């Protein structure tokens, strides 16, 4: 343990020296944001009929589910008593934002995501329950809920219900991630967090990071499957990513300009922090590398004609940079909000540990876990079967 004097500069109250919220609390809004973003991408195809992004529709849904299943884990690990979290469902306190978030999470998981995935994959599940190897067949049979009906009419009904679920799902996805922003934005004691713009900024950054993660997974998975990338899909995702990221950047700049102009009592302290302890993560990673560079890259792909290979590189690099930048944004919010004293006269340091319960290793493993879950989900419910069926001769694939 380092002496306190090495961590602290200026005046800190005793309870501010050590950070209460660690890298795991950085992961929580980051992962939730990826879920909301991936779902919004899926809804582009389903509700807004953006046909070009269809190849990523099912992948986006599975990605959202894989990340959503992991979203509460950083919190559980942080709390140390995971079993107690169940009490927030049993005896919820209405004045607790986190308790209410539990219900938003559950609603989104069960009523939106699982239902939409089940409806969309139902035909595949039924077909696989007939053809899959025996051990797997039982899982698929269980998933069919005992109904083998994949008649034209029943699939039409599924489609209609799925559409309604997606329409309900869009505000739900907004609520899910807006809520994460709300949890920070409503902390009135902390001027770094306390702004009504927080949920909106969180939301748009979530959409940008969610589209980026699906774009990268789609590119990687297509390469692994040795298939050709659908360039129309990539271009459309690239342009949506660009427009949404412009909105996200504008909102952040509005917030920044407002803070600079208002120059409230906390401003000097926060300004000093951005120019010292947060310089690298805020200015270098979040604003320059994570925002301006990808905006320039994506913008150039919109303005100038580029070869297919170059566009792929631009999208992949932009996606990676945006994901890094938005992780830095979450870092700057969560960690940055705890580095300065409420007296505005002192600063502390966050010491990231490695192999501890809330250390870097736990964070890395938690970030790998959704990809393992996604791999299992893709094995169970291959998102590309529809295309394969279509290639083999029509949507029904001649198996019904």
């Amino acid at each position, binding site marked *: 343990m380092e002496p306190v004097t090495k961590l602290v500069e200026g*005046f*800190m*109250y*005793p309870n501010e020296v050590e950070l209460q919220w660690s890298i795991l609390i950085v992961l929580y809004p980051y992962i939730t944001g990826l879920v909301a973003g991936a779902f919004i991408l899926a809804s582009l195809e389903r509700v807004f009929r953006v046909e070009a992004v269809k190849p990523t529709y099912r992948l986006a849904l599975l990605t959202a589910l894989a990340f959503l299943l992991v979203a509460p884990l950083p919190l559980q690990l942080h709390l140390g008593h995971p079993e107690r979290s169940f009490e927030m*469902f*049993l*005896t919820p*306190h209405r004045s607790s934002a986190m308790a209410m978030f539990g219900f938003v999470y559950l609603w989104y998981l*069960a*009523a939106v995501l699982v*239902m939409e995935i*089940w409806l969309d994959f*139902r035909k595949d599940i039924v077909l696989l329950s007939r053809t899959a190897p025996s051990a797997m067949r039982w899982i698929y049979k269980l998933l*069919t*809920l*005992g*109904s083998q*009906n994949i*008649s034209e*009419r*029943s699939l039409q*009904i*599924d489609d209609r*219900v799925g559409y309604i679920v997606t329409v309900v799902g869009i505000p739900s996805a907004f609520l899910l991630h807006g809520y994460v922003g709300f949890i920070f934005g409503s902390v009135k004691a902390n001027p770094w967090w306390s702004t009504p713009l927080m949920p909106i900024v969180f939301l748009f950054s979530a959409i940008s990071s969610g589209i980026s993660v699906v774009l990268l997974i789609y590119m990687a998975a297509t390469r692994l499957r040795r298939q050709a990338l659908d360039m129309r899909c990539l271009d459309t995702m690239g342009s949506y990513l660009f427009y949404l990221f412009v909105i996200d950047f504008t909102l952040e700049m509005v917030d920044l300009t407002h803070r600079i102009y208002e120059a409230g009592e906390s401003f000097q302290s926060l300004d000093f922090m951005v120019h010292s302890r947060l310089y690298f993560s805020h200015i270098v990673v979040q604003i320059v590398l994570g925002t301006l560079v990808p905006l320039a890259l994506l913008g150039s792909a919109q303005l100038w004609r580029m070869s297919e290979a170059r566009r792929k590189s631009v999208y992949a690099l932009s996606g990676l940079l945006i994901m890094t930048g938005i992780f830095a944004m979450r870092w700057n919010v969560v960690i940055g909000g705890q580095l300065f004293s409420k007296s505005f006269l002192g600063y502390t340091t966050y010491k990231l540990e490695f192999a501890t319960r809330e250390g870097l290793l736990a964070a890395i493993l938690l970030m790998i876990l959704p990809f393992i879950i996604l791999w299992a989900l893709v094995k169970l419910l291959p998102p590309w079967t529809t295309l394969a069926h279509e290639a083999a001769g029509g949507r029904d694939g001649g198996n019904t």
Partner: protein
Amino acid sequence: MKEAVHLVRLAALFAAGFVAFLVIRQMVVPAGFGKYGHFRAGALDDIRARPISYAGHGTCEACHDDQHNVLAKGKHAQVSCEACHGPQNRHAEEPDKVKPVLPDTRVLCASCHESNSAKPKKFPQVVASDHSGGEPCKSCHVPHNPKLSTEKGQ
């Protein structure tokens, strides 16, 4: 309806999940929860049934009025007896059998008066090791009225 039977089953599954949740909730949420507030009503009786540890300064003053008179005149007038002497209900009930141990002033005084930049400037604070060199505080100060007689101008 025949074409939507799978949806009915899904709805039934959700309904079953909801009912299971309600049943589990009924089983695990303690009786009386929420009766007076966001806690188990029975907790009040449990707490009431626990043995009393603190006698309260009124009880102390009934016997130790000499000490109380000293205390009342000094800066520590608002500090309750058991804040320094610890819980003394057993002593109050059996004064001859249970004798309290006097606290070590080197530790006790430092718990409030050790210098710390977070404390208000007007609050008396010292770096104990420099101030007393390991001597117990009560060598110079009377804990019940700690201002030195020279400081009082007497």
